[in-house]
């Protein structure tokens, strides 16, 4: 991500121009409705949209131009996100590469890796899945048991990953493997890039809460990975994962634009359904809208700190708690407004907004779980920001 500029008067003018340009392009190009990402045709449709975004230079606006970005400031990136979701833009199918792997590559990758990997990732030519979690390593990521053994010119990987989002449709996976079984938990892990069509890889999709085929298990049986596909140092995998999760928890994965747009849709839903909504529904709508505003203001403040060169690493836990809870609050309020129609899903003739709210609710319920459960985030806030003693 390029150096951010201070919010000077010139920057404000630039930002207004940037917003206008983004808005005009997005309003003209954002697709009306794409099928769910967790299906072959839906995945393909999202890939096509992402490529159109890339071709227009909007896939990764905050990246350096050499990797397909446009050197936008943090503020401009936030502006773009606001405009993207306000225009009805869908979630990014490239997300597990662009938001998770890329920050680690920017921080710890070699120049060769950056040159080789970033542009195809942003262009949705190579789609990335994440491979962190295992059946026995969810919240406790350091409990990873999948192994990588040194061989000539590279490594041989064994083990099982799970909850790997859309791995069934992706080309490659990035994740943690144990390279030193004798080292303590957080040590002895190394970060690998694994082609999902390599010999010995088997990917088995499974359905998430809402029935979409959005998850996969990835089984690795003696899979060769060359040395150039190790990210960071051998034994330094934890540091790479932290570079990734730090940004995952923070602003990169969940900028306020998405929630502002959802809160605006909630307000519009309430206006349509006002006649049957109760005073408590009305209050819940107002509160959820206010939650989204507060998160926006918080994020802009954090962006100001980043632009000023301050670190906001531990604060990303505050952000994660905020966005994950406000996302549930928005959906809860919408379901309350919808009342007995809330349960109707996509395809039900009477479903308001074609069942988008109950779908969004199910997606929102994952928020307090993934990327470090909210209980773990509260521990981080207590220990790293407040300085309370560890257990």
């Amino acid at each position, binding site marked *: 991500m390029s150096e951010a500029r201070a919010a000077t008067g010139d920057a404000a003018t630039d930002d207004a121009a940037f917003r206008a340009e983004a808005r005009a392009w997005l309003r003209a190009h954002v697709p009306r409705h794409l099928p769910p990402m967790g299906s072959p045709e839906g995945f393909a449709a999202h890939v096509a949209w992402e490529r159109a975004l890339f071709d227009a230079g909007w896939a990764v606006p905050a990246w350096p131009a050499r990797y397909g970005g446009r050197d936008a400031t943090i503020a401009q990136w936030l502006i773009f996100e606001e405009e993207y979701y306000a225009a009805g833009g869908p979630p990014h199918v490239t997300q597990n590469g662009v938001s998770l792997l890329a920050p680690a590559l920017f921080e710890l990758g070699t120049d060769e890796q950056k040159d080789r990997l970033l542009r195809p990732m942003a262009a949705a030519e190579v789609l990335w899945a994440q491979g962190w979690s295992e059946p026995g390593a969810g919240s406790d990521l350091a409990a990873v048991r999948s192994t990588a053994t040194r061989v000539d010119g590279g490594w041989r990987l064994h083990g099982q990953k799970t909850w790997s989002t859309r791995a069934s449709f992706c080309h490659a996976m990035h994740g943690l493997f144990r390279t030193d079984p004798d080292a303590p938990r957080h040590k002895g892990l190394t970060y690998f890039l694994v082609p999902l069509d390599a010999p010995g890889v088997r990917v088995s999709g499974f359905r998430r*809460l809402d029935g979409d085929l959005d998850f996969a298990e990835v089984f690795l049986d003696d899979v060769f990975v060359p040395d150039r596909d190790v990210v960071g140092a051998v034994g330094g995998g934890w540091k790479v994962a932290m570079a990734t999760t730090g940004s995952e928890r923070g602003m990169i994965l969940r900028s306020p634009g998405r929630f502002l747009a959802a809160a605006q849709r909630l307000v519009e839903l309430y206006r349509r359904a006002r006649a049957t909504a109760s005073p408590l529904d009305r209050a819940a709508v107002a509160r959820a809208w206010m939650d989204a505003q507060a998160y926006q203001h918080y994020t802009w403040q954090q962006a100001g700190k980043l632009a000023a060169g301050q670190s906001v690493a531990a604060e990303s836990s505050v952000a994660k708690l905020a966005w994950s809870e406000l996302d549930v609050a928005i959906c809860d309020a919408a379901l309350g407004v919808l009342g*007995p129609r809330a349960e109707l*899903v996509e395809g039900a003739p*009477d479903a308001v907004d074609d069942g988008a709210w109950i779908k969004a609710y199910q997606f929102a319920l994952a928020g307090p779980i993934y990327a470090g459960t909210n209980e773990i985030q509260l521990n981080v806030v207590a220990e790293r920001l407040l300085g309370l003693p560890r257990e």
Partner: protein
Amino acid sequence: MRVPPPAPPAPTDEQLALRDTARALLSRECPPARVRAAWDEPAEAAAAPPAWVALARAGVVGMTAPERFGGGGLDAPDWALVMEEAGRAALPGPLLETTAVAIPLLAALGGDALCDRWLGGAAAGRAVLAVGLGGAPYVADAARAHLLVLEHAGEVHAVERAAVTLTAQPSVDGARRLARVAWQPSAATCLADGPRAAAQLAAAFDRGALAAAAQLVGVARHLIEATVDYAKVRTQFGRAIGSFQAVKHHLARAHVAIELAWPCVWRAAHAVAGAGADRAIAVSLAKARASAAALGAARAALQCHGAIGYSFEHDLHLWMKRAWTLAAAWGDAAWHTERVAALILDPTSQGPAHA
């Protein structure tokens, strides 16, 4: 209101035995695989709901029917205990609608001919009854019903399946089969109107809300029991996750909410049976608390399961989605809270219309 109502007695040994029998029957006839199988039946299927015949044989379906129709003649406290067990099993199908709502409504308003024609069959499990009261836009299990009891402009009608047109409205709970029902009210279908219909419709709504509350308590209990079992064996950071205070407190709070909700259901069941003046308040208290307890249990269960519970292949979602849908049906917590507010705070009001 100044003098609290007399406390309902604790469940009798007979009542507890009834509940245990229902629990054993349901765990045999409606294991999780049956619940999951119900998701895969076509929405328009007219086949009997899962376990329906076995439940009818055991007297559960007809437990509210008069004895002369082969029913059990049970009163609300008895059948509420059975409904809790139906919730605990996540039983698919219209037990609530047929047994708690339609059978008593038909028995009260149906006249001899209609009762003779339908009640015996309903109690025996041959005839499924569906219900559409005024405030509810959809009818559950309408496609499976042989007779639909429907409200129209304050009147009660009974309409056979062949005389209605259904539009399936798929629910997030795949075992719940909703439909919009189009039909033509006529003098021939009308069972009652005026104050007589109004009184019976109000009572029927409260029975439905009570039954939903009882089922929600059962759903919530299952969710917490399953999660406690999981939290005892799942380890992270070298410890069972159930030993972490955060997990303990999530589950303890959910348990407390259930423990407070059930006595409200029990009290409401006696209010329904006794038809006292406080029936609406008691039922709304029960439904509001049970809805909140079940939604809270669903949140705690998913959060404590983590990603493993977020999968369609895990059984947890069968109960979670039942909690979501039943919590919203028959008036959600906000609606029932507003009804109580109207009844206790606005002395001139009779409360809002039914949900």
